[in-house]
């Protein structure tokens, strides 16, 4: 851009408290799919965010909201990307009404930071995506990131009670509120969650919270194959136990587990980790039920994890949601085992390495594939896997991939007929296309 210094002056005038980054090194840190922005802005207030978006609209700059940069690999490459608006300085906990089990937080606070503050009053936000040290609240919501505990507590859509968003045209708007039950007006929270910054920039979020459980414990169960493990999952969900997470790991995915857990798993086997959180007595009872159900489905209970070992184990599991090439596959739970078997065959045919974990009770698989430079084979395999998922009323989204692979296969897959509505909504919220286009479903 020829008049970068002019633009910098204008941005400073519009939002004086905003910090601007222009050095090559800084800009490179904000690159998305090899596209580097011209400028990075770190606003200090919600009003600054609105001023920046309005100016960007006038100057026809393409803006990408950025939090902790943990989910930037999600999406197709941007059509254009001029200005990053980073929420890092909007990182205050605005309210924590412990007695009401709610909180209000700015979007730039990291999840780990928020959890630490909530823990001082014995509570937590029941979202457990990977990378909680870096991932910000706004980024997690925009990407609809989740983790194994969604089985018990739901995902972002179930925990957010209110949002404050700056739309593409600079309008500052609230949706929802601060109370746990609320049907006043359209539920726009749902619309913003998972919209990947295409409708607006999330600047504040209100959540419902949960008291920290008295006890958490995980039972590790080995199975010879995925279908026996999934039969166990189905049996558990049709019983009176209420697991916090039910995670299935194939043999390859277990390589990165902590030593203590691996020591419990001799030989190649599928691992089902069943986790419970409640009062100690309830956990004990549910672990006993789980052992009995697993044993009757040819499972072999291997041992229990609690305390630090429990936390380290689950952090390692969550880390398996990230990698050079990762596909997130959503299925009905009864389709998980056949899909995993088919995936193995397809990967062997294409001479690809693969490893899989699944939030088994939710029907969500994270499939890591490699090598990352085998573009043709990856695209061929993923195409077949996607068709399988679609046949089963599911979906396959490539959450992590080298940019070159995205040129060969769309990360979202073909858009569905409701794309027309989504396009209309996008135009209503961001009429000048100020927010970066091209990354989301159907090129939105």
């Amino acid at each position: 851009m020829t008049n970068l210094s002019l633009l910098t002056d204008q941005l400073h005038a519009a939002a004086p408290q905003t910090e601007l980054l222009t050095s090559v090194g800084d800009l490179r840190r904000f690159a998305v799919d090899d596209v580097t922005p011209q400028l990075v802005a770190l606003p200090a207030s919600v009003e600054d965010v609105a001023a920046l978006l309005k100016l960007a609209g006038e100057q026809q700059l393409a803006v990408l909201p950025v939090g902790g940069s943990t989910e930037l690999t999600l999406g197709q490459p941007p059509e254009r990307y001029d200005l990053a608006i980073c929420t890092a300085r909007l990182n205050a906990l605005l309210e924590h009404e412990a007695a009401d089990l709610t909180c209000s937080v700015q979007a730039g606070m990291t999840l780990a930071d928020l959890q630490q503050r909530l823990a001082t009053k014995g509570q937590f936000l029941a979202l457990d995506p990977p990378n909680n040290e870096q991932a910000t609240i706004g980024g997690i919501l925009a990407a609809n990131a989740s983790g194994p505990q969604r089985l018990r507590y739901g995902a972002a859509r179930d925990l957010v009670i209110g949002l404050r968003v700056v739309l593409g045209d600079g309008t500052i708007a609230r949706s929802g509120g601060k109370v746990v039950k609320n049907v006043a007006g359209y539920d726009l929270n749902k619309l913003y969650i998972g919209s990947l910054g295409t409708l607006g920039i999330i600047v504040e979020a209100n959540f419902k919270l949960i008291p920290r459980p008295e006890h958490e414990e995980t039972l590790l169960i080995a199975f010879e194959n995925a279908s026996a493990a999934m039969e166990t999952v189905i049996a558990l969900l049709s019983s009176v136990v209420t697991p916090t997470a039910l995670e299935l790991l194939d043999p390859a995915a277990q390589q990165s587990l902590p030593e203590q857990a691996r020591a419990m798993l001799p030989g190649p086997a599928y691992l089902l980790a069943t986790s419970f959180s409640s009062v100690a007595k309830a956990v004990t009872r549910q672990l006993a039920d789980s052992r009995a159900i697993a044993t009757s489905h040819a499972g072999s209970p291997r041992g229990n994890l609690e305390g630090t070992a429990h936390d380290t184990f689950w952090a390692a599991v969550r880390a398996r949601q990230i990698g050079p090439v990762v596909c997130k596959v959503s299925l009905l739970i009864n389709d998980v085992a056949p899909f995993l078997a088919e995936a193995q065959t397809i990967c062997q045919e294409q001479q690809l390495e693969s490893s899989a974990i699944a939030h088994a009770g939710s029907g969500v698989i994270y499939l890591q594939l490699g090598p990352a430079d085998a573009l043709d084979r990856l695209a061929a395999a993923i195409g077949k896997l996607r068709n399988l998922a679609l046949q089963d009323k599911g979906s396959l989204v490539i959450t992590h991939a080298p940019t070159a692979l995205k040129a060969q296969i769309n990360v979202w897959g073909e858009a569905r007929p409701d794309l027309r509505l989504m396009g209309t909504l996008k135009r209503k919220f961001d009429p000048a296309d100020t927010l970066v286009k091209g990354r989301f479903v159907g090129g939105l």
Partner: protein
Amino acid sequence: MAMDAGEKATLVDALSAIVGARHVLSSDYDVMLYEYDASIDRARPDVVVFPASTAQVSAIVKLANQRQVPFVARGAGTGLSGGAVPLEGGIIIAFQRMNRILDIDYTNLRAVVQPGVVNLHLSNAMTPNGFYYVPDPSSQKSCTIGGNVGENSGGPHTLIYGVTTNHVLGLEVVLPDGKIVEVGSPTLDTPGYDLTGLLVGSEGTLGIVTSITVRIVHQAEAVKTLVGVFNTVDDATNTVSGIVEAGIIPAALEMMDQIILQAVEDYIHAGYPLDAAAVLLIEVEGLRDTVDEQVSRVVAVCEANHARAVRIAKDEQERTLLWSGRKEAFGAVGRVSHEFYVQDGVVPRTKLPFVLDRVNEICASYGLRVGNVFHAGDGNLHPLILFDSQIPGQVEKVRQAGFDILKVCADAGGSITGEHGVGMEKSDAMPLIFSDDDLDVMRRVREAFNPHNLCNPGKVIPTPGRCADIKLLIGQERSPAYAKAEAEGAWH
């Protein structure tokens, strides 16, 4: 707005060609039954049509578009905010005939239903297998799941498990232009915007749902219900906060004050004390091994807050009786006062003592009696203001008191509606909690889906300058449909 006789006759013919003449009502006598829901508003449709399929719904909506006639979807008409009342006349699309459970998949924990399925019928169908559908509005014996989706209905047992939106995964929708589209799916995280989440609770203004995919869950192993009896309302509300603060989230946590207790006891004979200031109806569920422990913790909190007595239901029969007292409370009050008006504000749980005092003060200042029966655990109030429209000026006082109560809720950091919906009557109160910009964004959403505003016009978002046309028609003679809904316990 009214249709002339010739226009109406051709509309009836065209609708008859779609669904068959038997399934179209158009005489004044017949359509009068459809001018109500369970709120205080009324407006008469020109025609009522009963489609049997999605294709028929689509054809009806396309016809309405060609003729520029407004249309409104209707389930059982149990709504409490006028969602199914055809404010501008036109066509009521009634879903009595689309009442089939299409699929129950116990393995994958999903069910697919048509919108006219009665809420309780779905759970009843699964009882033998030990599963149920969680949202349980008090009108669940008659309200439909399609209506629940429209209003994002709650119920006493949504405290721990969430409301309708948390249990709906996918929808088939006839859009306001008549096109049929599927949003969401039985699997999680469908790529794209969460249109399912947007449509749930849109009060029939963004489209008409024709098929609904929901989650189902296994029943808990054990359930215990108890009643705490208090000499002051403050002790009861402090107990609510105390329970939540102790880290206990019961399955249900309901409160009834003295006026309600007396009405309920006179009607149901559940054994509620007549002289108590308030009772809490508390339910805990979970594993057999731990429910008793939870009960003792709840009892301890009740006692710490000066409960006069705590009674634990000894068997399923007593539990059902206590719950019928709660679920029939509105009907019971109907026996005491011919007319009453219910509000649905929500406040943070800790503000309950303050807000309840204000509710009582407000009503007293207008010389009105008020009873409170509500979802205390959610902070979701249901003040029932009793009145007599024969007394000149009283209707206006009731309206004003209702608005003042919503203002108190808004000022306390709450909302104007927790589960009944905005509809017609509360759209004027939307500015209490939303700015002009907030409301403008909602208007943009409506324009995206419903640009000609033929699909349930006049709801949710305030229409500047039109309020004078919206008359409250309290105190007119009850229609047969109203009486029927009341008799069936369609009240919340």
